[in-house]
């Protein structure tokens, strides 16, 4: 449950934002934030959950155990991917269901809307999980999680999650559009908000083909790079490296 509490906090914040309006439109800002936050949730769940598992379980020896067992690494990764996806979906539902009840302006736009919603979730997870594996492999110390969180928080700021991206300077808009967080938010908005809201987006459009394209691009990059990084990490895992990390962790506590 602790894992889902940020989702609930965000939901409460959005409820308080109901009164605020989207600039230039008579539409609740809270209602537009909900789909964006759902998109952000996929990015978070995909990247951070998996990264965190890899960092923590590398320290306690779970990964080394997996390495000692035939096909153990593959089994371990499949398990963690399923688990991270499950947590992400659970968090998503915890926001989506109350959101659909409280914000009557938010709704799935028919069969097409459902298809878009499912597509964004699936492609989003495929795009972000490999990135999580890469992050988790590169940072060996769970206490360095802050280093990972910091740039991601910055990215959220320029990804149009809590405020329309068109209100930002153009160069920041470009940075935001490089990363999947923006596209996940946009994809979710296109599935859950009325068509008129596209007016505050870049190009006054939901840009669904571009969304799909960018997310698939990230998926391809991730799926190519992640196995290489994971293999390198697994190769370097050894009894002495686990012992050294434990030693370091003990020093910090003591």
């Amino acid at each position, binding site marked *: 449950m602790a894992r889902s509490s940020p989702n609930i906090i965000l939901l409460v914040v959005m409820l308080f934002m109901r009164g605020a309006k989207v600039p230039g439109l008579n539409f609740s800002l809270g209602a537009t934030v909900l789909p964006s936050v759902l998109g952000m949730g996929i990015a978070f769940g995909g990247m951070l959950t998996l990264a965190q598992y890899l960092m923590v*379980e590398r320290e306690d*020896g779970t990964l080394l*155990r997996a390495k*000692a*067992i*035939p*096909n153990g690494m593959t089994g371990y990764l499949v398990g963690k991917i399923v688990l991270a996806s499950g947590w992400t979906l659970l968090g998503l539902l915890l926001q989506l269901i109350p959101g659909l009840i409280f914000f009557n302006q938010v709704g799935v736009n028919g069969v097409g809307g459902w298809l878009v919603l499912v597509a964004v979730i699936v492609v989003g997870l495929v795009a972000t999980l490999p990135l999580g594996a890469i992050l988790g492999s590169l940072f060996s110390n769970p206490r360095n999680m802050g280093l990972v969180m910091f740039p991601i928080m910055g990215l959220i700021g320029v990804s149009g999650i809590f405020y329309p991206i068109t209100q930002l300077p153009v160069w920041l808009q470009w940075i935001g559009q490089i990363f999947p967080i923006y596209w996940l938010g946009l994809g979710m908005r296109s599935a859950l908000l009325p068509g008129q809201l596209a007016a505050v987006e870049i190009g006054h459009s939901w840009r669904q083909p571009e969304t799909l394209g960018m997310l698939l691009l990230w998926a391809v990059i991730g799926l190519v790079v992640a196995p290489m990084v994971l293999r390198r990490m697994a*190769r370097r895992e050894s*009894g002495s490296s686990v012992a050294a990390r434990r030693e370091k962790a003990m020093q910090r506590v003591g």
Partner: protein
Amino acid sequence: MRSAGQVSVLGQDPASGGEAWRARLGIVLQSWRDHGKWKVRELLAHLGEYYVPYSTARDPRPWDPDELVATVGLTEHANKKVGQLSGGQRRRLDVAIGIVGRPELLFLDEPTVGFDPEARREFHDLVHRLADGDHTTILLTTHDLDEAEKLADRILILAGGKVIANGSPDELTRQMSGEAEIRWTRDGQRFVHTSTESTRYVRELFQQYGDKIGDLEVRRASLEDTYMAMVQQFETGQTSGTAATFAEAAR
């Protein structure tokens, strides 16, 4: 990944060993903390599944989980969570995980560090059973020379990163000091004599004094004495200090 040199484990370089090769190995390191939320039997059954494709007629893999739990003496804790086990129980579970695939070669890294005497004895019995029952080679490292003497068929002593001795416990003691200490009493008086030819010395002693000899004791140097002597010899023969010296025992 090795830092230098060449390694061959079951005929393969560990860096390029495949999954089938991995299935023939068992590894037990010091103080593992993983899988704390799993139940003992569940974890063994789950990890055993990975070995099914590598089962052979000679080595049916994996070991049946219930049998395995009994072998390491954890039957009454089979449904406990791994995180709730005591140190000794946890280590026995680690051994169980190490042997769940019926390995041909089992590595034990200082398996009895921090054990109380009872746990240590139980663990030694377990190692004896493993070594006697199956065709499993066990390689264990230890700082405890009594343990090495008790368990090992062949002992390698490492000092400063080099093998300085190699042989059975008996060979090592013989090789190092052919001398034995002979103690006896005669007419209420105690005598001590050190000789390289202890058997002949004792025979001569009896020829000379016959029934007057009592409390006879012939003591060869223990492995610990041998070890100390070897390490000392090594250190004096070498200018640079040896930071880490440890004994490695192979069974």
